[in-house]
């Protein structure tokens, strides 16, 4: 029979019939159902298995605090493990599977663990599985890992997309129950910019789950009226299905909106979820309260749930888990549940209240001064045993048991900045402490005001007070007549009597006995208790279980609960899909891509690209017939050295330095001198960090007395600019110097090779003389090209050839590369990529990123003489420290294999011939290596201890990692043209 447990009324849409499956079985529910309510309507109480003992478990709650009813929702790549059935909105075609069981939910072979529970107590694994030592990884751990875990994921790429957004408001109201609605209305009517966020898909909070009225309306209708008014206000944003997950610094809150989770698949172009970063001037927490259970023997059977949840299912969803129900509690609110159930025709077999003086509020049998001491039913509760006040035991048949141990204000967000809640004895609960996040106040049940009337009035007042802080006048709302019952509770945590285990944390299977054992073994601090027993570490983070556990510990230690304290509440409030935290930053869009001005052209040439930081650069340009990258690279190198090659070097950092003190400024930034650099000249510069280690190298070109262009390496462009701004603003604030990064303003190409001048002469306007006399090595100038386009020309060389770098405004970069290539046709010009660039710089012995690795000094690089001692420059003082100026320090050298057919390997370590290869004998390491097509063998650059004095020595390059040992000869790092004749040609 379908929906046998469905009652009348409720806030569901009966016209909408939704088909769904659970473990392959077909069911029907209605619009407005959650998976849990729909399963209950169909008489399904067993929904899951616990973590450790695989005990059968049913739904405990009606909200996001649910520890038990966790399912794998959807299938395939969209499978979502550990999804709470209590918050999963039903949709047509929903598929859910139970998890952590084998072969089936009703018969789970792993439930064997439960039989051995005496051996598997808290922390048992710390005491065993140690012998023999090797068995841990091979046997014990795989066994434990397989048994542990909850749901499973497909690990297929998530097919849905996620978004991020930013919102700003005067007042963020968290929770749309009575307090939140009244707060939002107060602030909305005052004209403040308001955001009202609630995790539910029906706003109103407990108003939707109670039978109380507000004014003339039912609570739910009143909520609907207020929501309708708020929705009309342009200054109010109402966000349902939106969970505020965390409170962060300076009024920033994270919130996740589940845009499409209530649909089978997100509509085209819509995200599944959105992460909102909400910057609020003030925030108001109206998150209500969460009911807590009482622990007693076998209190975990399916059908045993929180009394308030039972009431919620009956009132909001018109379902009852069973027709015969028992209620067990220590407070007046439990009786309200009984009365509501009765009113809907559910048979309340008895209300068991631990308080001897309790009074019934409706027509049910009250067993005052009694306790539930046991339950029956393997896959669902069949009955309870009650110890009556008289001392007799009475057995009562029932299909559901509602338990109420009182309500805990939902203080979670008030503790995200490490504030601690305070214990209030009168309501037996923790309430928000005084040191919550700045700008966050609390109203309603979240602050311990449990009646509807106090929630309405505190919400309105707190909103008005928060706005007053901002200078916005708000009027408190008139208060409609509504329920205003006082709290009446006798704190009670667990029933001492009973044959079975009394469960505290139902997901992680932590019992009262486990807490006792933790106490016995001195794991008494709440944090030790949690970590030793795993109490509160499950997916619900102990929302319903933590307090019970620490109350038991308080009993054992004889300390108050206030003194015992709580563990730390940490974000997120409820678990958050990693997809939404990542947003669109995934796959190729993980990080932005920077493209060089010649990118499109290079693509047309079939270039292979490589990631260089954020940049994509052409690595080489394969030509038809080339089957191996080395063929392309060798060709590019040889052609460049033979005639001319062109490479896009735009990625190198460019910093414009201007002002009367520009030269003096650079003189402090660079270790070598710049004050006397002539206009129209370029100089190589070495920059040190203040600790004396090489930071970057590059060139500075003096275009005018008061104008330099500094270049940096690609990798350090941002750091160097920041560093120079630091020096300018913080160290020498009165220097007349201005900086601007122009990396992206200029497209820059290296034109290298013996024919580079001839090629350039074809594009540079004739007014500019490029002859060696007029424009020698290290010259620079502002010129025009192609008939009047402004450009900059630098005669600098990374390859060691006669070479230039020519820069044009970026928007002409594409045109420039095409013009250069066309002009170079007669010289068989080649485009070369970063590989050829790398080969040529190694052949020339130029240091690059592999050498400037953040630990090398000028001395290591063989440039000690460049560090001027006669001026103040950053890093010069500390570069003299003894550890940085040892004579036998690592020095940059060149290496060539003794047997030319062998390969020099970057990353190999160097050993003196005849010594054992070990760390003690380590003489240095190879930083860069390449095959030199010009020399016909492999070459390398290395840092070698006392390297300068070891030219000609044959040493051993060892690489046990790759199993390669090669005899190499120490040579000059300048493999090509050591005298630099080509540069100056």
């Amino acid at each position, binding site marked *: 029979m379908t929906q046998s447990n469905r009652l009348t009324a409720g806030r569901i849409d009966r016209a909408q019939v939704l088909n769904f499956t659970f473990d392959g079985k077909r069911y029907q529910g209605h619009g407005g159902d959650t998976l849990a309510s729909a399963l209950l309507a169909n008489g399904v109480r067993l929904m899951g298995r616990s973590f450790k003992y695989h005990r059968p478990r049913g739904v405990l709650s009606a909200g996001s605090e649910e520890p038990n009813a966790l399912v794998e929702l959807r299938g395939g790549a969209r499978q979502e493990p550990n999804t709470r059935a209590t918050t999963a909105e039903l949709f047509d075609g929903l598929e859910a599977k139970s998890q952590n069981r084998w072969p089936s939910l009703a018969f789970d072979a792993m439930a064997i663990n439960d039989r051995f529970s005496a051996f598997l107590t808290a922390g048992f694994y710390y005491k065993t599985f140690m012998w023999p030592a090797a068995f841990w990884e091979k046997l014990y751990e795989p066994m434990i890992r397989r048994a542990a875990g909850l749901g499973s994921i497909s690990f297929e790429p998530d097919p849905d997309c996620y978004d991020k957004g930013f919102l700003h408001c005067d007042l963020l109201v968290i929770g749309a129950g009575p307090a939140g609605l009244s707060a939002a209305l107060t602030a909305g009517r005052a004209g403040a910019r308001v955001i009202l966020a609630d995790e539910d898909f029906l706003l109103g909070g407990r108003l939707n789950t109670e039978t109380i009225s507000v004014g003339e309306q039912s609570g739910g209708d009143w909520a609907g009226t207020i929501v309708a008014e708020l929705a009309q206000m342009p200054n109010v944003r109402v966000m349902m299905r939106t969970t505020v997950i965390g409170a*962060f*610094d*300076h*009024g*920033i809150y994270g919130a996740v909106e589940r845009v499409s989770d209530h649909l089978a698949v997100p509509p085209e172009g819509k995200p599944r979820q959105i992460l909102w970063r909400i*910057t609020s001037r003030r925030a108001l927490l109206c998150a209500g309260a969460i009911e807590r259970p009482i622990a007693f023997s076998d209190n975990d059977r399916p059908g045993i749930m929180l009394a308030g949840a039972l009431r919620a299912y009956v009132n909001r969803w018109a379902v009852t888990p069973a027709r015969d129900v028992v209620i067990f509690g220590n407070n007046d609110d439990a009786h309200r549940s009984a009365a509501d159930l009765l009113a809907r025709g559910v048979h309340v077999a008895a209300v068991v209240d631990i308080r001897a003086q309790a009074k019934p509020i409706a027509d049910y049998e009250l067993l005052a001064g009694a306790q539930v001491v046991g339950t029956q039913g393997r896959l669902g509760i069949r009955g309870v045993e009650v110890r009556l006040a008289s001392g007799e035991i009475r057995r009562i048949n029932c299909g559901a048991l509602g338990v109420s141990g009182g309500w805990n204000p939902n203080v979670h967000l008030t503790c995200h*900045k490490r504030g601690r809640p305070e214990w209030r004895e009168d309501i037996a609960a923790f309430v928000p402490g005084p040191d919550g996040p*700045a700008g966050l106040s609390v109203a309603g049940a979240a602050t311990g005001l449990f009646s509807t009337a106090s929630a309405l009035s505190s919400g309105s007042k707190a909103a008005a007070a928060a706005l007053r802080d901002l200078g916005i006048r708000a009027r408190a709302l008139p208060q409609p007549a509504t329920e205003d019952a006082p709290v009446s509770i006798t704190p009670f945590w667990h029933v001492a009597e009973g044959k079975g285990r009394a469960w505290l944390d139902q997901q992680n299977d932590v019992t009262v006995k486990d807490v006792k054992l933790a106490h016995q073994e001195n794991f008494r601090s709440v944090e030790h208790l949690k970590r030793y027993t795993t109490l509160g570490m499950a997916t619900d983070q102990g929302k319903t279980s933590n307090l019970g556990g620490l109350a038991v510990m308080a009993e054992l230690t004889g300390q108050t609960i206030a003194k015992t304290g709580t563990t730390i509440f940490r974000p997120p409030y409820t678990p958050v899909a990693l997809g939404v935290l990542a947003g669109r930053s995934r796959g190729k869009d993980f990080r932005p891509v920077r493209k060089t001005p010649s990118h499109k052209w290079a693509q047309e040439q079939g270039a292979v690209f490589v990631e260089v930081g954020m940049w994509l650069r052409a690595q080489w340009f394969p030509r038809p017939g080339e089957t191996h990258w080395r063929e392309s690279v060798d060709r590019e190198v040889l052609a460049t050295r033979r005639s001319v090659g062109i490479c896009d070097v735009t990625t190198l950092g460019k910093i414009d330095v201007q002002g009367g*003190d520009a030269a*003096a400024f650079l003189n402090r930034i660079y270790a070598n001198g710049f004050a006397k650099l002539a206009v129209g000249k370029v100089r190589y510069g070495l920059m040190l960090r*203040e*600790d004396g280690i090489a930071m970057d190298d590059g060139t500075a070109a003096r275009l005018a007395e008061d104008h330099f262009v500094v270049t940096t390496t690609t990798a350090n462009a*941002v750091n160097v600019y*920041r560093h120079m*701004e*630091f020096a300018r*603003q*913080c*160290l*020498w*604030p*009165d*220097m007349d110097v201005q900086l601007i990064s122009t990396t992206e303003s200029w497209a820059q190409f290296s034109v290298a090779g013996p024919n580079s001048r001839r090629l350039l002469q074809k594009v540079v306007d004739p007014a500019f003389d490029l002859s060696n006399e007029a424009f020698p090595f290290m010259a620079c100038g502002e010129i025009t090209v192609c008939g009047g386009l402004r450009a900059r020309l630098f005669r600098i060389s990374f390859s060691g050839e006669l070479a230039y770098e020519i820069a044009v405004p970026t928007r002409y970069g594409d045109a420039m590369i095409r013009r250069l290539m066309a002009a170079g046709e007669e010289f068989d010009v080649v485009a070369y990529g970063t590989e050829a660039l790398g080969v040529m710089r190694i052949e020339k012995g130029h240091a690059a990123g592999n050498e400037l690795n953040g630990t090398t000094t000028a001395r290591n690089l063989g440039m000690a003489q460049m560090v001027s001692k006669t001026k*103040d420059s950053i890093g*010069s*003082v*500390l570069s*003299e*420290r003894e550890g940085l100026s040892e004579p036998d320090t690592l020095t940059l050298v060149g290496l060539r294999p003794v047997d030319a057919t062998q390969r020099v390997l970057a990353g190999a370590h160097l050993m003196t011939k005849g010594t054992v290869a070990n760390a003690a004998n380590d003489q240095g390491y190879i930083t860069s290596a390449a095959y030199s097509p010009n020399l016909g063998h492999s070459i390398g650059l290395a840092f070698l201890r006392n390297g300068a004095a070891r030219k000609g020595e044959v040493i051993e390059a060892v690489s046990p990692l790759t199993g390669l040992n090669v005899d190499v000869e120490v040579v000059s790092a300048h493999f090509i043209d050591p005298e630099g004749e080509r540069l100056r040609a």
Partner: protein
Amino acid sequence: MIINHPLLGPRDAQEFTYLGDAALIERPDWQAEDAHRQFYEYLYLRDNPAGEHRELWFHEQGDRSWLVVTRNTLTHEITHVDLARDVARAKGRSK
């Protein structure tokens, strides 16, 4: 976090890059007798207070100002923000 930029108003801290203690403004004299010792202490030793901390932030994705932010390292509360250049000048730094 939100940093209240003295020129631009409140800005998300993600626009900034952090350096460290604002004492890094007070770079020693390279010609001092004990310049080595002074530079070592300047560069390496920190007060590292648990409480109010004056620290340097660079508005990298903004106007490229270096700021001195007074922030509590226990609560992250920011009580004051200055342009680092003004702070440097007030400390007598010039050219």
